[in-house]
């Protein structure tokens, strides 16, 4: 037993080293910069800076847009997951591939494509004017950012939901019907609760990248709309104020950690069952 433990520790060592170098060290550095000023003295100012109107507004907007995007992703993904899980045919892998295929392309390229689509003189408005319909002004609005987020992160919602839906035994649903439940009751009392773990991991996988993104908002939101991700990015790359950037990152981290904790707790609950 002892020997087993030693071998497994030995085997784990590359991963531990990897985790140390690429996760722990950067995290420590973020906390170091975030909790000090230029002179290296301890301060909470960088954290408190979130209260400044510009920063608070950026955080609030980022939270709002990522929540909206997550909700939209959920309502698109769940019915689709149900259709996919129900049709246990070969066409299912085709549809899944269609959803995963875009992920093989670079994320920035795909977002850039939406830019050309939604531009004021872009493809969509071209088609609209050709059809003598009023043109739309989507680019550089929060709406454009939401479209970009939903488009980019939707697969991360579909896959876990599809997985948890397709792992439900048909006879469990039949059992609910057998015991008197109609289709609606079966859905709300059995299907939905059984897919909660899938929903939570989908929500986590959409919400966190949406909350922290700066690429999507930069490309589709123009320079006017600042999300907290943009603010942090600018502090690091333009203002060279690493302390402030790190301080705001810590604030953002709190939201992510809260989300993770919720997902872990409910995951454990699911495991008990």
């Amino acid at each position, binding site marked *: 037993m002892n020997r087993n433990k030693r071998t497994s520790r030995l085997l784990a060592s590359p991963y531990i080293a990897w985790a140390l170098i690429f996760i722990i060290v950067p995290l420590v550095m973020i906390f170091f910069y975030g909790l000090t000023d230029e002179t290296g003295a301890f301060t909470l100012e960088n954290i408190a800076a979130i209260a400044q109107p510009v920063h608070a507004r950026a955080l609030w907007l980022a939270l709002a847009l990522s929540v909206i995007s997550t909700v939209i992703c959920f309502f698109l993904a769940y019915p689709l997951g149900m259709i996919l899980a129900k049709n246990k045919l070969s066409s299912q892998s085709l549809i899944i591939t269609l959803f995963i295929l875009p992920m093989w392309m670079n994320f920035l390229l795909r977002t850039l494509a939406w830019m050309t689509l939604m531009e004021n003189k872009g493809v969509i408005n071209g088609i609209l004017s050709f059809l003598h319909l009023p043109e739309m002004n989507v680019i550089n609005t929060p709406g454009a950012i939401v479209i970009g987020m939903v488009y980019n992160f939707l697969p991360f919602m579909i896959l876990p939901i599809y997985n948890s839906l397709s792992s439900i035994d048909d006879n*469990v649903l039949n*059992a609910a019907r*057998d*015991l*008197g*439940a109609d289709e609606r*009751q079966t859905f709300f009392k059995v299907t939905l609760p059984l897919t909660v773990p899938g929903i939570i991991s989908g929500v986590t996988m959409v919400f966190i990248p949406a909350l922290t993104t700066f690429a999507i908002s930069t490309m589709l939101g123009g320079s006017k709309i600042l999300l907290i991700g943009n603010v942090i990015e600018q502090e690091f790359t333009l203002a060279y104020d690493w302390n402030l950037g790190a301080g705001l990152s810590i604030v953002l981290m709190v939201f992510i950690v809260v989300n993770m904790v919720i997902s872990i707790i409910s995951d454990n609950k699911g495991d*008990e069952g």
Partner: protein
Amino acid sequence: MSKELIQLNHISKSFDGELILDDLCLTIHENEFVTLLGPSGCGKTTTLRIIGGFEKPDKGQVIFDGMDITYLAPNKRPLNTVFQKYALFTHMDVAENIAFGLKIKNKSREYIEDKIHYALKLVNLDGYEHRMPGSLSGGQQQRVAIARAIVNEPKVLLLDEPLGALDLKLRQDMQYELIRLKNELGITFIYVTHDQEEALTMSDHIVVMNQGYIQQEGSPEDIYNEPENAFVADFIGDSNIIHATMVRDELVNILDTEFVCVDRDFGENKPVDVVIRPEDVELVPRGKGTMPGTVSHVIFKGVHYEMEVQAGGFEWLVHSTRLFDVGSEIDIKVDPFNIQVMNRPESEDEEAMAIDE
């Protein structure tokens, strides 16, 4: 006989162009323990699913208590099912699982509490209310599935190989529990299994199926002692099935030796099949029996010896408590009552069809 409760009228069902049930007719009486017995893939589960409402037949009707329920949704049917792999709700504890059907029917809390208590007692799971299904053994999950079904007081309980996943000892215990349960509840059980011993032990009425046809139905004794065809004889226990010729009434020629039997009305010199159970073949000293043979193989089986005897060019299977050593020169003797004569179908297809009439 008690009242007719369920009738399957000329049910046909195909999947992907393949005929799974062909013009199946079956009547089930009130308070019977009916078993659908047959090899894997013969359509037992499909039949049960049609009764439960999870599958619609392509043709035919399901009549329940005089009412056509062929197209009635499963949640509207006065019957409950115990599924092949339990199908418990893993996100609910045992009590919530059992309460599921009652909550849907908006029963009062006290009523539900009472029922949970009563059902757990009935299946010997007192005190398991708040365990999660995942933490229970197969046998315990099985009993929760049964409890969950019976609290709804169905008129009929459908059980699809409920003991299939259990080990032999637990299986036997559960068989007795199910019989006790059935007697206590006084309801109809429709039970699916491919285990002939289980069917013989538990049933009032056995329906032997093969390839979507009913081969024979009757009491366990009928099925065992008077199989109507070679398939049934072979499927229900060990047997010697031999091509023979009916010489005339009460005389059959088996492997060029004439045996007296009790069957009549097959005609003269008609090709037939005969079934002789291994325990009905008597071995007697040479000269005292009907057909000479030699013991070629002996296995001790606990209760009896299983012997193979070469006689008339056929390898006879014999069960006897009396041992004859390998090489013994003996005679075979069969009591006329123990020779079961059956029509021999001309072809395989006819074999399946002829018996369905």
